[in-house]
């Protein structure tokens, strides 16, 4: 049987993760699309924390000899998916900021041209 301290630590860690993610969602510091993997991970950890037998059962079904290895495998998989998602979002953001930078440069030129014409018109008005 699992020592009571380890059992409680598992549950507390899972609750902390979930609490953090939910609180950040509530404060709009995290968007749903980015939070989904963390929510899944937190919920899985909570289920396994409360009912460790689920992990042993799942490991048995898949054929993983040491149940902890299944935890590591799933954890790494989730971290991997999150990283890939972040890299992809970063690429999207870079493309957008690049487009914005180009637009800013071109808008700036239009403003300069307009200001120049305005200044010319005013000068013409004054001289006439």
């Amino acid at each position, binding site marked *: 049987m699992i020592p009571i301290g380890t059992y409680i630590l598992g549950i507390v860690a899972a609750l902390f993760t979930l609490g953090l993610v939910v609180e950040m969602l509530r404060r709009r510091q995290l968007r749903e699309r980015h939070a989904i993997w963390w929510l899944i991970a937190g919920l899985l950890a909570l289920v396994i924390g409360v009912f460790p037998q689920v992990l042993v059962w799942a490991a048995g079904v898949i054929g993983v000899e040491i149940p902890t290895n299944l935890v590591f495998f799933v954890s790494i998989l989730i971290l991997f998916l999150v990283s890939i998602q972040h890299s992809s979002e970063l690429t999207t953001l870079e493309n957008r900021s*690049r487009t914005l*930078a*180009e637009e*800013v*440069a*071109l808008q*700036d*030129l239009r403003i300069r041209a307009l200001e120049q014409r305005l200044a010319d018109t005013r000068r013409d008005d004054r001289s006439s």
Partner: protein
Amino acid sequence: MTTSLAGTLIVMPALNEEASVAAVVREVHEKLPGVAVLVVNDGSTDATTTEARAAGAIVAELPFNLGVGGAMRAGFKYALAHGYRNVVQVDSDGQHDPAGVVRLVEELQSADLVLGARFAGEGDYEVRGPRRWAMVVLSGALSGVARTKLTDTTSGFRATGPRAVRLFAEHYPAEYLGDTIESLVIAARAGCVIRQVPVAMRPRAGGTPSHNPFKAARYLARAGLALVFALIRPPVALHEGVVTA
């Protein structure tokens, strides 16, 4: 000659080129009277903008560094918005002789993208050793893609006709080597006609090209990777109609 140059915009990407940009702009105005020059300041921290404006160029300032690809796409967008038919890219370090622009633009009558090549028999600029071999390998591969013989695919001296200007205003890549290698692949796969003409090049004002074999290998690897990814990406179609900027 003058009629074709009237619709031509010279685009010069410039990153910290305060020492040379004014002289290059003046040389362009001198050798190609009446042609419009757009300097795209690619996030310089020096007086590139002031120098270029003083020399009579239009200067677009990018708020931060995007690389040659980003600067050029801004140039293509500008050309499209202001009704220029052709865009000619000229380096702001004085490496390209503006006199060559006439040759490039003439060739645009039968092509969409014209590269000014260093190794095509003209000029005294030469690269030797491993870097040269890397360029030969790359040129061979790209010649196949472009369905024409190319010898200097990394040349930044190139002219773009109306169809390719529309294509590049949308799809000019910003990655490392994207402005040279991937842009060629995009154009070739969109059905653009690519051609090469010999032009004279001057040695770069600052420093000589590296002959370090490891750097050459690294360059070839990155170029190969850029080429492979450019080829496996979905091709972009060439729109014949008018694209609104």
